[in-house]
Every structure is written in C-alpha cells, then in structure tokens.
C-alpha cells in the first residue's frame, strides 16, 4: 500500500505485525493497541522503533503515558465516513503534545487529505495509487481556513484582524 509522508510517496519502514505473529528481531514495527498494552516495556526494549495502531473507539488515556517513546501512532478509519480519528489526532497533537509520526490508516480518500493534515496527520496509508500521486496538489487546494487547529495555519478571522491592524498602523 502506498505510504505518503512529507508530501511524497515513501517506502514504509514499519512492518504491520499481526497479533500472535512473531516479532522481527529488529526493524520498525506497528502493533495493535492490545498487543502493545499487554507488555509495553518488552516492546519498547527491543531494537527498532515501535508504533501502535490505536482503534478509534478506544479512549486515549492508556496511550498517553507512552507517547514520548513511540515512533508512530496509527489512527484508524474503518470507513471514510467514520470521523472519530480526527478528534483523536487533534487531541494527540494539541492536548498531549505528541510530535512523532501520526499515521492515517484504513479507508482514506484524497478528498480528505486537507482535513487530515489540519488535524495533525503527517503519514497516510493511501489505498489508491492515483490518490497518493495527487497528494501534493490536493493538500494545496485550500488557502483559507476558518478554524484554528494545531497545524498553526492562520485563520481567516486572524488574518482579517492583522490586516485591519496593519492598515490602521499605516495611517
């Protein structure tokens, strides 16, 4: 599956390891929340980065204490209509200060890239090659944003107030 990171197609360094499957000796792995929480220390001790796939109906409280040692958190879109992971993403970035990779996994459409980047995602497991190819141009589709989020983009309201301020300062 194509992985888009930093705006372009990249090789996914993480290996999805199914529950019960043996862990590779080294290298980056993505494991389920259940497997991770069963023995976080053992996983974090091994050589190689660890990422967790966090379901969208599970409270983040159990994840938060481990955030600074995780290399990736993958949030799940069971269908592209299910928007719970957008809230989880914003909470991880904006409330809990998570600054590692935040990956969108599951069903994702290119038409959702803007929302996802605004919510804090920076890695995307995209189903369709064409969608992955279109990433760079799709995320540039909008230049005006009404809401403040953790992505730091200036809102329309703030731009207006800055403009007004600079106009009155210039007089």
């Amino acid at each position, binding site marked *: 599956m194509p992985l888009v990171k930093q705006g372009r197609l990249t090789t996914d360094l993480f290996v999805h390891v199914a529950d019960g499957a043996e862990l590779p000796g080294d290298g980056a792995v993505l494991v389920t929340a259940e497997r991770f929480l069963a023995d976080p220390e053992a996983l974090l001790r091994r050589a190689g980065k660890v990422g967790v796939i966090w379901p969208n109906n599970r409270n983040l409280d159990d994840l938060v204490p481990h955030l600074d040692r995780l290399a990736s958190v993958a949030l799940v879109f069971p269908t*592209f*209509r*299910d*928007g*719970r992971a*957008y*809230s989880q993403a*914003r909470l991880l970035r*904006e*409330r809990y200060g998570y600054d590692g990779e935040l990956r969108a996994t599951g069903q994702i*459409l290119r*038409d959702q890239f*803007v*929302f*996802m980047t*605004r*919510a804090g995602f920076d890695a995307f497991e995209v189903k369709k090659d*064409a969608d992955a190819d279109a990433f760079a141009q799709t995320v540039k*589709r*909008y*230049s*005006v*944003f*009404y*809401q*403040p*989020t953790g992505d730091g983009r200036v*809102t*329309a*309201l703030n*731009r*207006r*107030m800055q403009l*007004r301020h600079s106009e009155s300062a210039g007089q």
Partner: protein
Amino acid sequence: MYAYDELDRTLINERVSEFRDQVKRRLSGELTEDEFKILRLQNGVYLQLHAYMFRVAIPYGTLSSKQLRRLAHVARRYDRGYGHFTTRQNIQFNWIKLAELPDALADLAEVGIHAMQTSGNNMRNVTSDQWAGVAPGEIEDPRIWSEIIRQHTTLHPEFSFLPRKFKIAITAAEHDRAAIKIHDIGLRLHKNADGETGFEVLVGGGLGRTPFIAKTIKPFVSGRDILGYIEAILRVYNQYGRRDNIYKARIKILVHELGIEKFAKEVDEEWKAMGDVGLTLDHTAIEEVRSRFSYPAYEKLPHMPDELKQAAHDKLFERWRKNSVSAHKVQGYSIVTLSLKPVGGPPGDATAEQMDAVADLADKYSFGEIRVGHEQNLALPHVAKRDLPALFKALDRLGLATPNVNLVTDIIACPGLDYCSLANARSIPIAQELTRRFANHDTADLIGRLHINISGCINACGHHHVGHIGILGVEKNGEEFYQITIGGRADENAQLGTLIGPAVPYAEVADVIEDIVEAYLALRDRPEELFVDTVKRLGVEPIRERVYATR
C-alpha cells in the same frame, strides 16, 4: 447584510474547483458512487426520484436582491424554472444535472452563495430568526453569532464526518421563530444578571423517527466562550455518538441514552480540558465580524403616514396588512411577510419570475434585502409604511399577497413522494387540497393561528411532530395513509403533538382535518383561544371523539 471579503470568496471558489474535480472524477469512473456520495452530499447534492436535487444554503435566511436574482438564474438556466424554499433556510432545485452542477455552483459563488454542508453528516446551515436585526425587543442581531458559527463550522477539519447531520439554530427574540428546540444545538441569546450577553445552550432536539425537544445543557455561556463550548459538545458527540445504527446516530439519542446531566458533565470536562485553543472570542474579534454587517440608513418617518390612512378603506389591503405586516424596531417601517402558500399551490415554491420580481421589489422597497423563514415564506425586512399600499398591489399581481400567514393554509410541507426518494406518501397534493378547503380567507381568519405541518415519511422534514396539526404519510399495503397528531408546537413552548386516531387514507385526510378544525371551533371557549391552547386545555380526547365518532 454580511459582506463577503476576499477570503470568503477565495474559500468558496476553492470549494467550487474542488467539486468540479470531484464531479469530473465521478463521471470518468475514477470515483465510485459509494465514494462520491459523501462528497456530493457535502455540496448539497442528493439523488431524488426524478433527478439530482441541489440544496443551496441561505445562511440565517438573509439574501440580497442580487443573490435572489442569481437563484432565479440557476432555476432558469440549470433547472425547470422554479425552486423550493425549505424549513431550514435553504432553497432546493429539483432537476439539476450533475454534469452542470459545477457551473451552477460557480455562478452562485460569484454572488457569495454556496451549498457547502447543506447535506451530509456534518454541520448544516446555521439558521436564525428571519426577522433578525429588525424585530423589536431583540437582545442583539443574532446573525453576527450565526455568521461566527457559520465560519467556524464550515469545512471543519475535525467535525466533517460526524455520526450524523448536525443542525444549529439561534434566536435573540422572546418569541422563537427559529425553532431552536428542535435542533441539535439551540442557542438563545440573552443577558445574564451582570448584563453580559451570552447564550442559553440547548442540546439534543430533533424530529425524525425518535423526536425529542432539546434540553438546556447550560443556562449561560458567554459570547466569548461560545465557540469553545460548541466545540466541546461536538467533540463528545463525534467520539461517543452511535455509528452502528443510522436511526440512533443523532446527538439527541446520545443525550437521551446518557441523560442530560451525564452528557453535560462529559461536555464540561472536555471544555475544561480544552484550555485556550484559540477559540475565545475577544471584543475585537466579535467586532470584526459585526463590522462586516451593514444596516440600512433608515429615514425618520411618521408612525402613521398618509398613504396608510388612505389605503385603510381598501378591505383587501387591510386584510393583507393585518395578516402579513409586522412591527419593525424602527418607527415608520414594517416587516412584510410574502406568503409562498397560494391557494392550490405547492408550499414554499417560487418561480424564477417571482424571484426576480421579489428582488426588484426588495430594491425598490426594502434596501435590497430579502429574508427566508423556516415556515417556507419570504420576507421584506425594511419596508417604509408609506410604501405598503404600493407593495401590496405589486405582490398581489405576483401571487405573493395571500393573506394567510400563520393561518390554516400557511402549510409547511416537505416535497414528499412527488420528489423524494425517501418518502412513503405524497405531501404536496395534501397541502394543495387543504388550501382549497380553507380557501375562504374570512373562515381562515375566524379559525385564527393554526399551523399544519405535513411530512411524507418518518424523517419529518415537514416537522409534523411540532405542527399544531401534524400529518405524517405512511405506507400500508402499498397505499398512502396518514397519521394525524394535534397539539404540537415549534416555538419557545415547543411540544410534540399527540396522535388523534388511526391513520386515514389519502382521500380522507382533508375531511378529517376539516372535522378537527370544526371540533376546535365548537370547543374553544372564546374566539381568541388558539387551536393549540384549546388542545392544551382539553386534551386530545374531546376532539378525537368528535372527529372519529362517525368514522
């Protein structure tokens, strides 16, 4: 009027170009219908019985004459020459072609109109009192807040894929014309003991399969905090709202299942945990939005101009004036409601010619401004009283002076089985027949205020639960039947109606309604006692007895 600036214009143009690309991908097969459906819905495009239907937002019900002319243009150029005003300050076109939709949207964007989020599981058009800014006794113009919330909820990166649709309505007047108690969030502007302006926040109202009247979640949230508080409600809903069953996915079910106290506690915790995330509206921010609203330069005019005195002998004028003209906050001016409920006509429809003509009248008599109300009528919000006689003549010629506002023939109806793919039964022909039965305006006057609401299925787009008389179309063995409720209301005393008896077939609905009205006339204790008050005083039983005794 709110004036779009370069940023608002840029955003809706970007939206149009995005949708143009999506339509192109759909028509080429790059997008499946399953994928495209949510994208088109987020741009107000449904698929109905005959064609695609296109729903355009009229935020808080305010239109300029230029915008109304452009809606007429869309009706003429891309549709069949008419449009349908809905119960949520939108207009719908029934016969639009998908391939032409991007052009229609581009034409609308030129005058600052969009169709974003008029459908789909996101935050819908923010509605308000159609008399906002002109009603006497208002706390302040609720459209300032409607616009602040409209912007905040437009293309929201976190809440565009909610469990289900989400509707917000705002009122600032004592009498609620925005039906806030049947919204997911209802906001009532008021001042607290310290004189600070803020909102009573209601949550969990809604009709449909499981109707609920909204409950107060917080008696006062200051204006500066309102966005943060709404954000907290939405976050709780986005995370915990049910997604396993479409009929249980609205916030009303979550509120009901958790109980309002528990829900309020969840929201409060989230609100506290949120801290300062840039949503607090300081004075400058509010004033920035306020400054973009312009108001007419009213003249100093007499309370009772000569023109009005002279016209008083014209019975038709007087009847219309008493029915359709309401008090304005500025002396010498009036608010004029334009009935879109002519006898025998489909409720809420207007032809392109009517729209153009109303735009012209708005330029001539109402500072170029038109309003759209949830009762599916239009209004001219700033008419000088001296102009009322001339305006009446012009409206009468257009078929827009039916003196039936708030009367028995001012029927709210969804499109029903004539258009809608969800409907079980027809709505419009029932409404048409009822307007013929009560075509005599003297009789309608005698009956007094009476709201009839008709929905063609349980989704309740015609708000039948809160009609003084509610009519719900159902299907029984392939035939159209109608359940009738009485005693509902949508205002500040909102209440759900009570079923009066077994469902009746299509052909008998008008007879039953006539009998209900007759029973009321016989049972009311004085002419001023309104239908809903009689039902409240006596209960359903005495009316049921009279109506069903011979059935």
